[in-house]
């Protein structure tokens, strides 16, 4: 099978990408893959450089150049100062916080890359994982406490308050290194 870009070298990288909901097969040689931005330095990841810039162009060429587009240009991650524009150019996030900073624009990108998926369904870190469930219990207890106080059941409320303290101690102990 020849490379679909140069029609010269044999295609060695084969994958599908989703464009506007349609699956398109890509068969390219290593060289064209690099030149066209299908692969990044990462040996096995195909960078989304072209998908991202495609998405971006789509936005800018759409007839109603609405405020969302203008906004997205100045959207900046407070933690690492990467802008959304940087992100679409480089195709990489600068830090974990970028995911929150750019969140309103990300799901369409994730959908393209991950066959329509936007939510994680896999491993949860052991330590943070147990923290997550503790946090969930904590917020449940706090709600309970509010209700008890509202209903003037102070004896019960005192017990719940102790339980909350216990959970909080547990939570802070776990993440105590920093």
């Amino acid at each position: 099978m020849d490379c679909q870009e140069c029609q010269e070298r044999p295609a060695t990288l084969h994958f599908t990408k989703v464009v506007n909901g349609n699956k398109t097969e890509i068969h390219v040689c290593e060289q064209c893959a690099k030149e066209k931005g299908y692969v990044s330095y990462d040996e096995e990841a195909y960078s989304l450089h072209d998908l991202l810039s495609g998405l971006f162009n789509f936005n800018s060429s759409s007839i109603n150049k609405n405020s969302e587009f203008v906004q997205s240009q100045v959207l900046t991650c407070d933690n690492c100062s990467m802008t959304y524009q940087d992100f679409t150019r480089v195709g990489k996030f600068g830090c974990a916080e970028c995911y929150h900073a750019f969140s309103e624009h990300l799901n369409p990108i994730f959908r393209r890359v991950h066959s329509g998926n936007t939510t994680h369904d896999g491993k949860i870190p052991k330590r943070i994982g147990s923290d997550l469930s503790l946090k969930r219990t904590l917020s449940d207890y706090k709600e309970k406490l509010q209700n008890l106080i509202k209903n003037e059941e102070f004896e019960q409320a005192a017990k719940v308050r102790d339980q909350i303290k216990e959970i909080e101690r547990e939570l802070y102990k776990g993440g105590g290194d920093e």
Partner: protein
Amino acid sequence: MSLQQFMNEAISPWMKEEGPDSDIVMSSRIRLARNLDQAPFPIIAKQSELTKILEYIKEEYHHQTFKTYHDLEFVNMKDLKPIEKRVLVEKHLISPHLAEKSEQGGVLISESEQVSVMINEEDHIRIQLYFPGFQLEKALEQAFEIDDWLEEKINYAFDENKGYLTSCPTNVGTGMRASVMMHLPALAITQKINRMIPAISQLGLVVRGIYGEGSEALGNIFQISNQITLGRSEMDIVGDLQSVVEKLIEEERKARQLLVEQSSIQLEDRIFRSYGILEHSRIIESKETAKCLSDVRLGIDVGFIKNISKTILNELMVLTQPGFLQQYAKEALSPEERDILRASLIRERLNIENG
């Protein structure tokens, strides 16, 4: 354990064991991408921030042993010569990205070279685990254990909704790339592989020919890996990959049998010609080497060649790469010099086999 061992042996200790379906599947690999929360990702982080991470990992994990993964050796990329880095790349212990782009890169390598943990690559941490043959599930299980072990002393960047947060959106979620390296000579000779590749890529899997310096699937070796990392569990992803690999194994076996039944003498001729070239040539390019090695390995698998060990393909594939040749020669070599050294190393290696 010293760096020297990683450099001198072309074949990693774990490769010497024969895994399931090793006549077709050369190795199974799980890679997990992880980042530290708080710290900026390597692409934009300050050098000083990355040095801190590198020092922390060295402090905590250098010479540590986890289960059967003995004596992790910390290697700082700064301490390596370019040829040494290239050797680690050719052995798949580090990525080209770590070797070439990471100014504050490092790696932890276990004694068996089965585990390598790259530090400050595109992500802060990339865990790689190899198993010989077709053992994806086992590799996943063990990779999870190593991941949990590392997590005891590292706070990972994780989001309930998006999973493990990675620098590239292609890795977010599980951060997992599962892959198998397959030797598919019969499917390649009969050109069936060309019809199968589009079908496989339709399933969200990526097929790539590897070992090519530029283009081709040298040595008929293909890597199959998952494309999607978000929205599906690691088990499901591995499950999908597994069923495709099983299908490929089945097809490759059928194609081999058909070749033996219908074109036995032609196949035997092809195999022994390649064997002859490897045994007698004085100048050989890497492309021809790969083709001949693939034929000889097929010859071993179908029973035409009996006195050579099966690991010869894996071993010579690595040993005859440019970096390794130069490491062996202890000097930089021109392409012509490499072709001569390559031929002589192969002859030497085959002579040992023949006693």
